[in-house]
């Protein structure tokens, strides 16, 4: 009997696996056993964090999940602010949610693009990455950087919204809504995509809970859990949007969940652009440390200078926990400080690391051709998992 089993190594240089490897046992075309093998892009974020000052950790925690950098940055800062005992002003919270939601949209387009090329539709891939460009252009206007924003700092944000931003953002959102119709016609409602995704990689609700899965993969199986709704942070309680929950739990539901979440994020951004209050963008006790010369510079250009204390932030000893709903799921940060200017221990659990457990559960019983379909639908980001 064992002669029938063929052992396949898919990855880590495989076009269909990203920087990880599947160790697959195949009987004919049917997968008998699948074991993911990760760690190829492990960069020991948690160890490096113990040798960095608190401010220097912001770019460090953004790097693993590069497609969605605003949310880990936000999650780390929320934990740090609990330790520092600092509250960001109202406008800064709005700007944080604005960047987080714009980042969620272009992170979902990244996921849709990757799923497209995994299924063979190079058009969905190119469109996904073209539409990302619209949002990245907006983020570049707001923060000055394309992907690695490092925009959220303890007590607020680094830059104010330029005047031309609102009008340009509304145009971009209307364009994205038009584009989503073309996605539906060409890729999502395409009968070939439906044949490849419907009923493939079905994740039942109780398995999703039992395995502790996160993000759209969880909600596509019918579990009503979104950190923005369950424990609202920043200004999510003031914004009205609904949680996208579907019940089929197959790869097609995960794809549709992401598209619906893009529409929800568009709704959120529109509300923010309408309701954002005027006011400072940095907490009062830090703002007064900025020399007056740089306060006029801020009022003229909207770019904020750091107070000198940021180079030697020393939070009081203690520990803090924060969780944020990232594009791929829930980020979880646990910061322990011992009073020095470097954290004693930083625990970062990224959404893709919580989703790794799904592969061996979902792949069994499917065909080889379903591996890319399931892998793409889970929106798995290897560097984000390996950290």
């Amino acid at each position, binding site marked *: 009997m064992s002669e029938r089993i063929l052992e396949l190594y898919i990855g880590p240089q495989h076009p269909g696996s990203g920087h990880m490897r599947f160790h697959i046992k195949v009987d004919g075309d049917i997968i008998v056993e699948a074991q993911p093998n990760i760690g190829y892009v492990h960069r020991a974020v948690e160890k490096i964090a113990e040798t960095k000052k608190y401010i220097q950790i912001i770019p460090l925690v953004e790097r693993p999940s590069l497609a969605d950098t605003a949310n880990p940055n936000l999650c780390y800062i929320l934990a740090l602010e609990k330790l520092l005992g600092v509250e960001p002003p109202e406008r800064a919270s709005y700007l944080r949610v604005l960047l987080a939601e714009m980042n969620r949209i272009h992170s979902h387009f990244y996921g849709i693009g990757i799923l497209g090329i995994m299924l063979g539709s190079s058009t969905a891939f190119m469109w996904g990455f073209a539409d990302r460009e619209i949002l990245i252009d907006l983020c*570049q206007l707001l923060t*000055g950087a394309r992907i690695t924003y490092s925009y959220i700092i303890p007590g607020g944000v680094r830059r104010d919204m330029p005047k031309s931003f609102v009008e340009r953002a509304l145009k971009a959102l209307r364009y994205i809504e038009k584009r989503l119709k073309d996605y539906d016609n*060409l890729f999502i409602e395409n*009968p070939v995509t439906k044949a490849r995704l419907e009923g493939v990689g079905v994740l039942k609700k109780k398995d999703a809970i039992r395995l502790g899965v996160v993000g759209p993969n969880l909600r596509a199986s019918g579990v009503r859990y979104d950190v923005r709704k369950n424990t609202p942070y920043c200004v999510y309680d003031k914004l009205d949007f609904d949680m996208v929950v579907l019940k089929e739990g197959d790869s097609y539901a995960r794809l549709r969940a992401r598209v619906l979440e893009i529409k929800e994020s568009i709704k959120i951004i529109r509300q923010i652009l309408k309701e954002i209050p005027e006011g400072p963008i940095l907490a009062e006790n830090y703002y007064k440390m900025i020399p007056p010369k740089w306060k006029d510079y801020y009022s003229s250009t909207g770019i904020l200078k750091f107070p000198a204390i940021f180079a030697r932030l020393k939070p009081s000893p203690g520990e803090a926990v924060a969780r944020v709903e990232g594009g791929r799921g829930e980020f979880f940060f646990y910061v322990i400080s011992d009073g020095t200017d470097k954290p004693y221990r930083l625990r970062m659990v990224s959404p893709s690391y919580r989703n790794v457990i799904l592969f061996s559960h979902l792949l069994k019983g499917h065909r080889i051709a379903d591996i890319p379909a399931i892998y793409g639908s889970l929106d798995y980001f290897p560097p984000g998992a390996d950290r």
Partner: protein
Amino acid sequence: MLQPTHYIPTGGGMGVISAVEGHVRALLTGLKYLVTKPRITILYPEQAEELPQGYRGMPVYHKDKCISCSLCANICPANAMKMVKIGKKKYPSINYNRCIFCGFCVDICPAGALEYSPVHDYASYNLEELEFSPEKFAEGPPEPPFKPEILRIETDEEVGLKYVHPKS
């Protein structure tokens, strides 16, 4: 558990109709994009994007304004900024290999000696060349070998990104 192969949705007659209709819609959308929609990409490096004011590119250093407080070296997350002793005072030297354009040094410099520059695509033949001493750092990033045609991006509802020649 091998799931059923339902390439033709089993919704009876209706299923076949919706499948054919799906095919036709996909093909027509493809045709629409083939014929009507303009391209969104520009021919980099002949054409380049006009970067917004405050774009975080390679930091630029003005040695005269520097008060050598070494805050920039303290805050640099990538250990790219190192203080070099010249005479009695210490001045920052930068290693552009490591610089991640995060702009922390520019934002913390109390004397305004560091500024953002829109240069982000500078390349060199070896790694040592990218380690700038304070004097070379003060000269600012070198000019690119050729002048690309600068285009300004305008967000547009119909085509997403529209590239126009900057009038101002």
